[in-house]
């Protein structure tokens, strides 16, 4: 009898979880659409400089689907590690802007 009660209880719990999961899926879709609708947002160069105290900054704007590859750094001939970023777009030009406070 105890096991049967437990069974009924678990079935009810799983039904609750299923409803909760469906609700989360719907809310996620709604939020994704809502975020897409927020367009033409911009930040200023100063905003960005304030976030990365004194670094040299490259701002990259690229079409959807553009690939960014970062090879695992290898030791160069001169004993120094080489760090690389490779950008490849198949649908439009990529815009890169150098930003620093000066």
């Amino acid at each position: 009898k105890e096991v049967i009660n437990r069974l009924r209880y678990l079935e009810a719990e799983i039904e609750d979880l299923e409803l909760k999961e469906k609700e989360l899926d719907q809310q996620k879709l709604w939020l994704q659409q809502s975020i897409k609708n927020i367009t033409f947002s911009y930040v200023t160069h100063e905003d960005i400089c304030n976030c990365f105290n004194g670094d040299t900054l490259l701002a990259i704007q690229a079409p959807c689907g553009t690939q960014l590859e970062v090879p695992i750094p290898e030791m160069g001939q001169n004993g120094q590690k080489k760090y690389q970023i490779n950008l490849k777009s198949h649908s439009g030009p990529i815009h890169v802007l150098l930003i620093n406070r000066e």
Partner: protein
Amino acid sequence: AQECQNLEMEKQRRIERIKQKRAQLQELLLQQIAFKNLVQRNEQNEQQNLGPPALNSTIQLPFLIVNTSKRTIIDCSISSDKFEYLFNFDNTFEIHDDIEVLKRMGMSFGLEAGKCSSEDLKTAKSLVPKALESYVSDMCTGSSWVNQGLLLSST
């Protein structure tokens, strides 16, 4: 009893899946709050400055930021059609997306770190639909209904 055991495992699987989906939803909520807060901030600045900022002083979202030390030497090769870029750095760098920049600007009121004043929490909630406000409160207190809800009762 075997069926019970199977249902227990099914329940745990679902709870794990819900936890992940809940985390994804909270990340999306952070984005929504940050974007809407940015739009409001820009509108207020434009009203104060009687117009939008100069085009060459702003960057449209979405974008990525590569940041590296000021001393780093960057060598850049660009294809003629600008479809391909190759950067060589002689030092380490970091790459961040625009959401990370907005978080650093405070556009998500520190919700991602669970540090949010009651005033900011109120403003943040006003930027999301009423049905999702409870998630925002949970982010602020760092709690989640799974800890409070079924898991505890079933143990």
